[in-house]
């Protein structure tokens, strides 16, 4: 295409952006006129112009025409024309979806062409676009191409990966079925390329439904064993720089990480042999000096180590892995040092290897000091954080603090958070903790986020024994001439609360304290000044002798007439308060802050948010593993759940009396108790939306029978039965009056989102028992005092979160009555309980370790915390209650399977009561994010 080459060199020769735009506009005009011209363009010209458009688009300019011509190219029988057409579509298609049916038609023709090159082009295009529309059109066709006996190998490969791609974006559209079993057998295929592609596909599918692909374990082990023991020459061009099939090996090892260690002893020892062989090979001299050789070889090694860590069951392998990584820590390749630090982080969380990892502490600290590359140093910080425990916390915190002095600005905040967490977590005495945090502020004040200084205040307030020390230390720290504003905040707050504890010493008498704080007042920002004003009013209460001094300050123009409204208001209110209130009132209003309720550390939440879910070993999490022993479990709480609370929420939880001093602006905020929905239940003429009682949601989660609605006229009762994904509800309508209901009818509606899930299957069968007629009466009447029964059949298609609404309509005494009640059909009704042993439970728990699979919530108990009631509620929820699983007998653990038409979703739950705090923590892990969330929402309202 000479025209294209000429155009590209023209563009490259443009001296300025303007010249380039001019040249492009000229070209666009030319192409437009060609496309619009009377003369039909031949394929070659069309290809050339489409290619030019593509080039222009890739330069970053918008293209708003030419899509049709590109689609036309798909039907060309010339390969390159077709190819350009497909390329244009895969790069630009989402912007122009009205062509999708034409495109799909082109793809369909090529898939049916039996020409492998054309079929591959079509499959690549589906994979590249990967949109829902594509999935809808082709997801059912591709599996048959994949497993058909006469499909060419190269097409099989494309089909496998194309399916993988569609499964990632639209898993609901890729039907499971008979083909899945045949895909597993592709692991035995002669063609290693096919095996490689199939392994990728199976890994993705097995992550979603492990049970369906369990048979792949033995095939994968066998295949892996053949590869690692083969002479490298056997695999011909699948040998990469003297390493036998590194891609396939890594993929097989990844596939095995979807499962626990094989139960079959022979299989298990064969796998162990493979892993040992891989570890042994690391010690052999390299077969080539090329970096590609060592990279490929070590890629397999690191993946094998990842599998060993995942299984977490063979102490010898774990320790060998740790030693191997230890060697890499001092390797001359930076890449290997980086990866060794990264892998060791996960190894540190295994009880078998935690101690072995700790032996490398000096090397890691050295890396922190000497590595030239900041990303390697960052991994060293991560590893120190992961290997920290009570025995080495002082050393690690000290090293991190000293590194902080010259650390790169990009990672300072994270280090600050980590130091703050470790200091709190492993504080044997809180004086060390207070010292550490004040040091943090001194060294890296700018990077100490609000959460960190909130937390130190929370802890000082909650720990009586450290208050005096804290007051003394902040007082001393404030003496330095250039102290950081964050220190002033902490100092102001702590002296305001506990300044009296050091007031006996003449060197820190009330007036000295006040003068010290006030000397810095004018240099700081408005929020800090506001905080200091609150500290001053607290001083007035603590030390009556400084009252006149402080009143003078409050009275000064710079406060009373401050341009900032908040400062002005505080000054005025505090001044008035100090003038008119009696000592008793003042003492009550300005009482010492009550302890903060126990909750997740705000710093930890911040770190999680910063690092993204699943990256931070959660220190607070009880560490679960098979032996109930300690383990740094990966925290998987979704970030949206752990967004750091705001200032007000954090320092001033709403559910306790608020000291008036802190912020006058929030005094008016009322208690946000939810209004009780009983009124809705009794309101017979309420509109459908409002009448749909909220209570049904809560009351009927754990029970199936009862009255869901009652007013002076009508009572609606339910009996329901569920089996797997099917349910049957008997609805009883009782006429409470002595006269007839006329035109009685009922229907079930649900929101749009639910329609797809349930509504098509809600079949209504209105049965009038007295007449014993199984059809809907034309003009049914319900006699006074009579009861009408209706049967609803329900089928759950896929998981849902909406509740269907039952609408009842009838005429009573001349007026039309409309009643809408929520039907208690929730996702948990489709539970089948699953009994399992403690070992199985923990294995599954670990398998469901992907961050999105876990949902956790911490909430306040609404009812008395009675074990028997809780047991009954969990059973009523539908899961099996597993005893003897949780190391703490006070905790509740349950397991069950949600049945929907297409899939089954395994669910594990854990409820941890904390009777002292009257709080619960509920954790749900299921293979599906939406299910975890919904179940968590439902169950958390029950206690």
């Amino acid at each position, binding site marked *: 295409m000479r025209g294209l080459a000429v155009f590209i060199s023209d563009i490259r020769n443009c001296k300025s952006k303007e010249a380039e735009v001019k040249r492009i506009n000229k070209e666009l005009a030319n192409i437009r006129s060609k496309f619009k011209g009377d003369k039909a363009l031949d394929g070659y010209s069309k290809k050339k112009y489409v290619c030019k458009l*593509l080039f222009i688009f890739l330069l970053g300019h918008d293209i708003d025409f030419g899509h049709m011509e590109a689609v036309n190219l798909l039907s060309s029988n010339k*390969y390159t024309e077709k190819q350009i057409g497909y390329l244009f579509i895969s790069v630009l298609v989402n912007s122009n979806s009205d062509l999708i049916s034409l495109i799909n038609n082109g793809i369909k023709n090529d898939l049916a062409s039996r020409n492998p090159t054309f079929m591959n082009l079509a499959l690549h295009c589906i994979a590249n676009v990967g949109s829902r529309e594509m999935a809808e059109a082709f997801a059912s066709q591709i599996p048959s191409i994949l497993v058909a006996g006469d499909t060419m190998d190269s097409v099989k490969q494309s089909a496998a990966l194309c399916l993988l791609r569609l499964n990632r974006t639209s898993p609901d559209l890729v039907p499971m079925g008979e083909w899945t079993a045949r895909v597993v057998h592709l692991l035995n295929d002669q063609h290693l390329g096919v095996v490689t592609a199939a392994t990728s596909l199976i890994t993705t599918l097995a992550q979603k439904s492990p049970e369906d692909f369990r048979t792949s374990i033995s095939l994968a082990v066998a295949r892996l064993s053949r590869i690692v023991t083969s002479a490298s020459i056997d695999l011909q061009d699948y040998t990469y720089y003297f390493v036998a099939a590194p891609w396939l090996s890594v993929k097989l090892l990844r596939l095995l990480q979807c499962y626990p260690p094989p139960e079959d002893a022979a299989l298990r020892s064969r796998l162990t042999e493979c892993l040992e062989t891989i570890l042994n090979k690391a010690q052999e001299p390299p077969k080539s000096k090329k970096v590609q050789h060592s990279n490929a070889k070590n890629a397999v090694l690191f993946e094998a180590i990842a599998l060993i860590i995942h299984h977490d069951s063979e102490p010898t392998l774990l320790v060998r892995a740790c030693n191997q990584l230890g060697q890499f820590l001092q390797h001359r390749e930076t890449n290997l040092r980086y990866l060794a630090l990264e892998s060791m982080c996960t190894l540190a969380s295994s009880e078998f290897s935690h101690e072995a990892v700790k032996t490398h502490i000096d090397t890691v600290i050295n890396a922190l000091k000497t590595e030239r590359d900041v990303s390697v140093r960052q991994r060293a910080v991560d590893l120190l954080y992961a290997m920290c425990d009570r025995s080495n916390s002082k050393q690690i915190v000290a090293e991190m603090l000293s590194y902080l002095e010259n650390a790169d600005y990009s990672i300072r905040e994270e280090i600050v958070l980590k130091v703050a967490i470790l200091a709190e977590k492993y504080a044997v005495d809180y004086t060390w903790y207070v010292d550490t945090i004040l040091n943090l502020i001194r060294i890296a004040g700018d990077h100490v986020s609000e959460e960190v200084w909130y937390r130190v205040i929370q802890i000082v307030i909650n720990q009586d024994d450290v208050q005096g020390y804290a007051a003394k230390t902040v007082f001393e720290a404030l003496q330095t001439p250039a102290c950081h504003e964050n220190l002033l905040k902490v100092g102001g707050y702590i002296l305001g609360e506990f300044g009296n504890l050091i007031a006996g010493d003449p060197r820190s008498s009330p007036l000295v304290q006040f003068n010290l704080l006030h000397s810095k007042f004018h240099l700081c920002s408005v929020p800090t000044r506001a905080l200091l004003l609150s500290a001053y009013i607290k001083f007035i209460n603590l030390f009556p002798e400084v009252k006149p001094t402080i009143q003078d300050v409050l009275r000064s123009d710079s406060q009373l007439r401050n341009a900032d409204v908040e400062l002005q208001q505080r000054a005025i209110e505090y001044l008035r308060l100090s003038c008119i209130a009696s000592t008793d009132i003042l003492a009550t209003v300005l009482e010492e802050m009550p302890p903060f309720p126990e909750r997740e550390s705000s710093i930890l939440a911040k770190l999680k948010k910063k690092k993204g879910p699943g990256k931070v070993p959660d220190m607070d999490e009880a560490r679960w593993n098979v032996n109930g022993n300690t383990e740094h479990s990966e925290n998987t709480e979704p970030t949206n759940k752990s967004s750091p609370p705001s200032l007000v929420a954090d320092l001033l939880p709403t559910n306790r009396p608020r000291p008036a001093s802190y912020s006058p602006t929030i005094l008016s905020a009322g208690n946000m108790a939810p209004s009780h929905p009983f009124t809705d239940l009794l309101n017979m003429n309420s509109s459908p939306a409002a009448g749909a009682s909220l209570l049904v949601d809560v009351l009927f989660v754990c029970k199936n029978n009862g009255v869901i609605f009652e007013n002076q006229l009508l009572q609606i009762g339910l009996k329901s039965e569920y089996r797997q994904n099917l349910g049957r509800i008997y609805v009883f309508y009782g006429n409470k009056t002595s006269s007839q209901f006329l035109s009685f009818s009922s229907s079930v509606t649900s929101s749009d989102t639910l329609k797809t899930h349930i509504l098509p299957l809600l079949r209504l069968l209105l049965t009038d028992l007295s007449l014993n007629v199984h059809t809907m009466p034309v003009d049914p009447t319900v006699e006074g005092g009579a009861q009408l029964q209706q049967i609803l059949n329900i089928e759950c298609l896929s998981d849902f979160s909406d509740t269907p609404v039952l609408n009842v309509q009838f005429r009573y005494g001349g007026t039309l009555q409309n009643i809408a009640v929520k039907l208690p059909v929730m996702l948990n009704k489709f539970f089948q309980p699953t009994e399992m042993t403690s070992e199985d439970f923990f294995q599954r728990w670990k398998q469901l370790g992907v961050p999105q699979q876990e949902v956790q919530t911490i909430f306040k108990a609404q009812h008395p915390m009675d074990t028997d009631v809780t047991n009954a509620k969990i059973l009523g929820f539908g899961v099996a209650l597993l005893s003897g699983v949780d190391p703490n007998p006070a905790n509740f653990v349950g397991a069950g399977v949600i049945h929907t038409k297409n899939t089954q979703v395994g669910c594990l739950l854990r409820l941890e009561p904390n009777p002292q705090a009257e709080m619960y923590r509920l954790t749900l892990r299921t293979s599906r994010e939406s299910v975890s969330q919904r179940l968590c929402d439902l169950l958390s309202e029950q206690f």
Partner: protein
Amino acid sequence: MRFLLLFSRQGKLRLQKWFTPVSDREKKKVIRDMMLLVLARQPRSCNFLHWRDLKIVYKRYASLYFCSGLENNDNELLALEVLHRYVELLDKYFGNVCELDLIFNFEKAYYILDEFLIGGEVLETSKVAVSDSMEEADTLQETMEEYMSKPTY
């Protein structure tokens, strides 16, 4: 693998491939961030970075940076070899490939990539198999006469 970007030392994007749906705005942001991050790296630093929740693996070949974004459980070293294998394939096809080849034959660069990676996974690891399919495709091109007889505009 989530994406693959090729850009020059001067910050000119030469090839972009996204393996998950990404909005245009987000693409621009990722591209900008990648160039800022990668071009600022010292020579002989390690080839890996953490960025948001992704692992970035990059490598410089002559004037071009090859930069890929991996998911958390992807293998970094192997990704490095994916980049290398792609360079080898380009080299084999163009014969001592240089940046200009990729500029003037960008459609071929995309095509070779498609033959090698789909959905971010390696489709065919054998160099022989990939180059065979490319040769086969090339024989499907028009003959030279056909090519020469076309007008350029």
